[in-house]
C-alpha cells in the first residue's frame, strides 16, 4: 500500500514535467500545426539560463536563495521565451512565408534543436553542471511514504500552469485568435487579426513555460547536460499526441498518463522491460483512440 502511494507521488512528479513540456508542444501545434521538435532543447536552454541566473545572483550579487528563486522564475521564463521567439523569427517564419510544406518546418525545428544542443556543448564544454540548491529540501514522511517540498511545488506548478493556459486559450481574445488560426490560416488575417503577433505570443507562452519546466527540473534533478532535453522532449511530444495534440487538456492528461505508465510499468513488471511495455500500452491507446484522448477527428466533408 505504501509502495503504491509512493509510486503515485513519483508518477505525479514525473508526469508534471511531461505535462509542462507537452503543453508547449501542443500550444504551438494547436496554432501552426507545427511539431516544434526544438521544444525539448528550448527546455534545456531554459535550465541552463536558470543555472547561470542563479549562479550570478547567488555568487556575484550574493542574494538570499529564497529571493533568488523568486527572481529566477520570471527572469528564466522571459529569457527562455526570447529564445523561442528568436527561433520562430529567424527559422520558422521565413519558411512559413514561403509556403513550405509543414514537414520541412518540422525538419528545420529538428535541426534548430541540434544546433542548440551542440552549440551548448561547443560553448560550455562537456562538463556537466550542478544546479545549486535553492530550497532547503524537507522530506515529509508518512509511514513509509516520503514526499519532499520540491515535489509538491512541481506538481502544483503543473496544475496551475494548466489552468492558466486553459483560461488563456478558452476565455481570452488572443486565445480565441489562436484557436481560430488553427482552423483557417487564410480567413483569420481577413478578420483583422494580426497572425504574426498571435504566433509570437504562442511561442512566448510555450517557451516561457518550457523555461519554467527547465528551472523546476534543474531543481529536482540537479545535473545539467546539453542533451538533457532530447529524450524528455521526444517523450513529451508522445504525451501530447496521446492526449490529442492541439488540445490543452490533452497535453496535460497525456503528460500525467505517460508519467503513470512509465512509473507503473517499472513498479509492476520487471524494469528491464519498461520501454517495451510502456510503448506497447501507448500503441494500444492509439489503436483504440486513433486521434488521442481529447483529439477530435476533423471530419472531412465529401
Amino acid at each position, binding site marked *: 500500500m505504501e509502495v503504491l502511494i509512493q509510486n503515485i507521488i513519483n508518477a505525479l512528479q*514525473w508526469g508534471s514535467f511531461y505535462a509542462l513540456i507537452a503543453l508547449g508542444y501542443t500550444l504551438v501545434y494547436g496554432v501552426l500545426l507545427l511539431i516544434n521538435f526544438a521544444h525539448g532543447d528550448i527546455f534545456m536552454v531554459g535550465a541552463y539560463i536558470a543555472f547561470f541566473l542563479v549562479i550570478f545572483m547567488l555568487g556575484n550579487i550574493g542574494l538570499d536563495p529564497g529571493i533568488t528563486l523568486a527572481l529566477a522564475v520570471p527572469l528564466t521564463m522571459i529569457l527562455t521565451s526570447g529564445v523561442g521567439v528568436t527561433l520562430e523569427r529567424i527559422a520558422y517564419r521565413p519558411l512559413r512565408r514561403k509556403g513550405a510544406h509543414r514537414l520541412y518546418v518540422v525538419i528545420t525545428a529538428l535541426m534548430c534543436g541540434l544546433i542548440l544542443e551542440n552549440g551548448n556543448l561547443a560553448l560550455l*564544454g562537456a562538463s556537466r553542471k550542478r544546479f545549486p540548491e535553492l530550497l532547503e529540501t524537507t522530506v515529509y514522511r508518512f509511514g513509509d511514504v516520503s514526499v519532499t517540498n520540491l515535489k509538491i511545488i512541481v506538481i502544483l506548478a503543473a496544475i496551475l500552469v494548466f489552468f492558466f493556459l486553459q483560461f488563456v486559450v478558452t476565455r481570452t481574445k488572443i486565445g480565441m485568435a489562436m484557436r481560430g488560426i488553427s482552423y483557417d490560416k487564410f480567413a483569420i488575417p481577413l478578420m483583422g487579426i494580426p497572425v504574426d503577433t498571435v504566433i509570437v505570443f504562442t511561442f512566448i507562452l510555450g517557451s516561457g513555460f518550457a523555461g519554467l519546466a527547465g528551472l523546476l527540473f534543474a531543481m529536482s534533478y540537479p545535473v545539467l547536460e546539453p542533451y538533457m532535453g532530447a529524450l524528455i522532449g521526444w517523450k513529451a511530444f508522445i504525451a501530447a499526441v496521446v492526449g490529442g495534440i492541439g488540445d490543452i487538456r490533452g497535453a496535460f492528461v497525456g503528460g500525467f498518463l505517460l508519467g503513470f505508465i512509465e512509473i507503473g510499468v517499472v513498479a509492476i513488471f520487471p524494469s528491464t522491460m519498461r520501454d517495451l511495455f510502456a510503448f506497447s500500452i501507448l500503441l494500444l491507446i492509439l489503436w483504440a483512440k486513433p486521434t488521442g484522448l481529447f483529439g477530435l477527428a476533423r471530419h472531412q466533408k465529401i
Partner: protein
Amino acid sequence: MKRFLKRTALAAAVMVLAAFMLTGCGSEDENVIKIGFNIPLTGDIPKVGESSKFAAEMLLEDINSQGGVTVGGKQYKLQFLYEDNESKAESAVNVALKLIDQDGVVAIIGPNSSKQAVPAGGTANENETPMISPWSTNPDTTKDRPWVFRAAFLDPFQGPVAVNFAAKTFGAQTAAVIFDISNDYSKGLAEIFRQEWEKKMGPGSVVAFESHGTKDQDFSAQLTTIIGASPDFIFVPNNYNQVALIVKQAHDLGWQGPFMGSDAWGSAELMQLCGDDCKGQHFSTHYAAAGAKGDTKVFIERYNEKYGYTPDDVAALTWDAARLVLQAIESLDQWPSERSAQRAAIKDALGQIDEFAGVTGTMKFDDQGDPIKCAVVVRISDQGAFEFAESVCP
C-alpha cells in the same frame, strides 16, 4: 552517340577525381611517429572523449618537449591524431579505418566504450594495427584478437571485489542493484555482481534488480521498489552523472543505508554533481586520487593544474594506455622503416611487457591482451576526496 560516350567518360572522370580528392595526401615524415585516438568527442558521452583528449595532450607535450621518443638511439617526434567517433559504432569503424589507412598511425588508443571498441577492435585486428582500449570492459573487445589490448580490468574481476568488500565492511546479507540497461558495462557488471553475491549469500539474497535507460533522469519508481525490498545496501554500477541523481533521489525517498559503486564513479565531477549526498559511500576503482603517491600524485596534480579538475578514471587510463604504447616503442632495438613492421613490432612489444608502472597501478597483459592489475576500493571522505580503503589484487 559520340556525344553520349563523351559524357559518360566525363562523368566517370569526375567520379575518379572525387575519389582521389577524398584520399587526400598525408605528408610522410620519416621522423614522426603517429598515434591515433578514436574517441567520442560528441554524442552520448562527450566528457569521456574530452578527458581522453586532455590526458593525451598533456602526455604529448611532455614527450615532445623532451625531443620525442627515443628508439634505437634515434629520436622521433610524436604526433597524436584525435578523431571523433560520435559515440556511434559505424563511426568508430570509419575512424579506425581512417586512422589506419589514411593517416597511417602505428597504434590506436580508444574507443572507450565497448559499443565502439568491439567493432573498432575487429577492424584494427583485421588490418593488423595495435589498439588499446582504455575503458572498455566487454570481453569481446579483446577476445581472439591478438592486436587488441585494453587498460581497464574486466567485470569478472571487479564484481567479486565489490561483493567481498560489501559483505565484509557493511556486514550485509542482502543487496539490491540498480543499473543502466542500455549500457553494456553497467548491465554486465550488474549481472556478475548478482551471480557472485548469490553464490556467496545464497539464492534470493539480491532482493531487487532494477534497471533504467541511459538518458533517464527519474529513478524514483525503481528506488521505491528497492527500498520496499529493504536490502542491506544498494549496488550502483552506473556512470557518475546518474549516480548523482540516484543517490539524491534515494535519500529523498528516505533511504539511509550505504551505496556501493564501481569504477565508473571515479570522476572528479561526481562530487561536484552529487555534493553531500555521496559522502561516505564506497566504490571500487583503478586508483585512489586522494593520498596517491609517486607518479600518480604528480599526474593528478599536473592535470588538475592544467585543466582545473582532478582527472577521472578515463583520463588516467588513457594516459596509461598511451604510455604503454610508448614504452613498447621505446623497448624496441630499432624503429623499423616499413609501417606494417612498425605495427607488428609494437604489438609484440606490448605483449612482452613484464611490468608497467602506470598511474592506475602496475600491470601486464595476459594472453588475451587484458591487463592483470589490482583494484582498489575507495571511500568518499567528508571533504569529498577519494580515500584509499582497500586494495585487491588478482
